[in-house]
């Protein structure tokens, strides 16, 4: 029994070393009166380190709930979520704060920068919570801003920046503490086509350069093309998982016979 136990755990170590995220049977139920809304109804998925994964699905399919559960923003009703070897369903509020600070970066549809702080201060914020010294965090924040192409705008406040620039600051901020995974919830949802494409390219570039895992909720077909895998969610469950190659064929066929493909999809 004991040997089995250790064998299992060593097996897991191997698995965990390669996986940035493991979700096992995650459920999230909301009770509204006598009604039970199953936002997540038993999701299983694994995301490898360095992977760029897109989560697709219709509105109300549970994408944002999955984002919240994986991001440690809310506890699942049942099931387990591992971020970089840590089971987040076992953490208390303060431990979750620690995890959010150091292991996870967030990018939101509405940017969510702190309005009264400059771009540089916004990027330093997660590093303040991580207890990094002032000089070091400012150096690092400036480097990150340069990486996202906003070195010259470091001292501008969010209101003095365009939507695309604000999202760039948010991307720089999400990478501040070298997280295990960056979660993005509809990052291009509030941006026009061209700016959205720039943001996507920037996220891919950061993914390649820093080897940080990215999980991205999206409706945006442009992102699909760029991701390593696409996980389709429907009614709180994984509908299907597609790899990059499969999708590129599909996108191609989409151009040829749009009607039929769209009909198959819905």
């Amino acid at each position, binding site marked *: 029994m004991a040997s089995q136990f250790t064998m299992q755990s060593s097996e*897991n170590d191997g698995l965990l070393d390669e996986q940035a995220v493991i979700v096992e049977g995650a459920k999230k139920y909301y009770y509204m009166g006598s009604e039970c809304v199953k936002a997540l109804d038993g999701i299983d998925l694994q995301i490898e380190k360095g992977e760029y994964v897109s989560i697709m699905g219709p509105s109300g399919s549970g994408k944002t709930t999955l984002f919240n559960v994986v991001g440690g*923003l809310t506890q699942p009703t049942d099931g387990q979520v591992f971020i970089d070897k840590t089971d987040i369903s076992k953490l208390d509020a303060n431990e979750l*704060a*620690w995890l*959010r*600070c150091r292991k996870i970066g967030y990018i939101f549809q509405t940017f969510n920068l702190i309005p009264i702080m400059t771009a540089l201060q916004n990027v330093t*914020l*997660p590093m303040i919570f991580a207890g990094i010294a002032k000089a070091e965090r400012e150096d690092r924040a400036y480097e990150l801003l340069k990486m996202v192409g906003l070195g010259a705008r470091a001292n501008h406040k969010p209101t003095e920046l365009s939507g695309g620039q604000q999202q760039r600051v948010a991307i720089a901020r999400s990478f501040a503490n070298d997280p295990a995974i960056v979660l993005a919830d509809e990052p291009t949802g509030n941006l026009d086509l061209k700016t959205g494409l720039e943001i996507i390219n920037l996220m891919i570039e950061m993914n390649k350069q820093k080897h940080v895992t990215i999980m991205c909720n999206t409706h945006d077909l442009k992102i699909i093309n760029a991701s390593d895998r696409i996980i389709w969610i429907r009614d709180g469950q994984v509908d299907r998982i597609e790899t990059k190659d499969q999708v590129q064929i599909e996108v191609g066929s989409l151009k040829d016979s749009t009607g039929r493909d769209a009909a198959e999809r819905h």
Partner: protein
Amino acid sequence: MKNQAETRLVDPLVHGAYTSSQFPVSAALLFALQGIRLRLGRMALVFLGISLAMAFTGALLTTDVLYRHIPPEVTAGQQSAGAFRWMWVAVALLISASGTLNAILMSVTERIKEIGTLKCLGAKSIHIVEIFVFESVLLGLLGGLVGGLLGYLFAAASFVMNISSRYLTAAAMLDGAQVILICVGISMTLALLASVIPVLVAAKIEPASAMRYEV
């Protein structure tokens, strides 16, 4: 599968690490100041309310102190402020405290999304609590200082006009000036008490629901 999961241990770094997370007081103060600055109009009204209440309190306290410096044969047992007047003080303080409570509560609800963002970036509830306690206590400090000073000056002026400047000795003035400190103390304590409810609201905010919140 379930059993396998049980054997995975939680990262030891995470457990017990929460003592190392830092949020300097200066940063909390910065947030508090910005909170006040963004709502300057409303905060000025609250500040005015606290100042007036504290000026009233301060004036009565100062008058009391100054009367003690008049030789007893002059006052002939006359009291400066009757017990009845202290009731008005209590009412004034109650109103100023409820005004502070309301202002900080609004500051919290208006910034739910910001609080959610801070929590996403690694802020703990205690850090959020710090920000709003500072905001409230800052208002209390300023209101107590200005109100206490106004009350003191008013009481001194009225003393000179109604009694005589003869009894307004340096010692009496110095004794009266202590009232300003007392006012600051009362005002800050009240502000601290008034911030309890808003701060509890802020601490309980779950980041996931804060992100969905539309102002």
